């Protein structure tokens, strides 16, 4: 069965510092991989997705993620965070057109 692990429940980062959110998945083949962001009281917004090809994926809001098959990881990064990046971030996997499996989420707090 597929699964997604986001090891960090909560991360605090200073504004202007870099951010990396970890995501590990378990699946027999290469699934489709996604990162979503959720601001308080809002729905989830797609940041980026990986289906195939280049393992470094660029997304919206200056985010990027790198797929590493050997590590079964799909970590999200941003070189310099802004206060508006404070939100909850969800990694998700889906086997081709199968059901999405979401991680438990990582809450990001940005300090001045």
């Amino acid at each position, binding site marked *: 069965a597929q699964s997604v692990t986001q090891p960090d429940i909560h991360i605090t980062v200073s504004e202007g510092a870099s951010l990396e959110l970890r995501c590990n998945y378990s699946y027999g083949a290469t699934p489709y991989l996604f990162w979503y962001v959720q601001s308080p009281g809002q729905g*989830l917004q*797609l940041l980026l997705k990986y289906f195939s090809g280049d393992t470094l994926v660029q997304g919206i809001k200056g985010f990027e993620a790198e797929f590493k098959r050997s590590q079964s990881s799909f970590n999200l990064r941003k070189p310099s965070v802004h206060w508006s990046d404070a939100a909850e971030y969800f990694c*998700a996997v889906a086997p*081709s*057109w199968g059901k*999405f499996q979401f*991680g438990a989420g990582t809450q990001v707090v940005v300090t001045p």
Partner: protein
Amino acid sequence: SQTIHQWPATLVQPVGSPLSLECTVEGTSNPNLYWYRQAAGRGLQLLFYSVGIGQISSEVPQNLSASRPQDRQFILSSKKLLLSDSGFYLCAWREQRPSGANVLTFGAGSRLTVL
């Protein structure tokens, strides 16, 4: 472009009362539709999904039901709410395979508080 609407945005209901949350999608046809729930401090739980009118699959046995009376309308209901039904409910849609984009698009959510 496609848009997804959910309402009401916020709902406070007494235990034992009925529930109806509605979701509609515009700008597409024959979408796959989903209801998720987020309990406080927890991740997303898939409740129901639908691949067509009248076709509902339930993921978790519970006090809730779903219906799809029209192609782009998805309704979440309960006859008698429980305290444990409190949470943030998210509707989402995805295009049908194989030519559609394999991306879930979410509505803004409905916050339900059962007292």
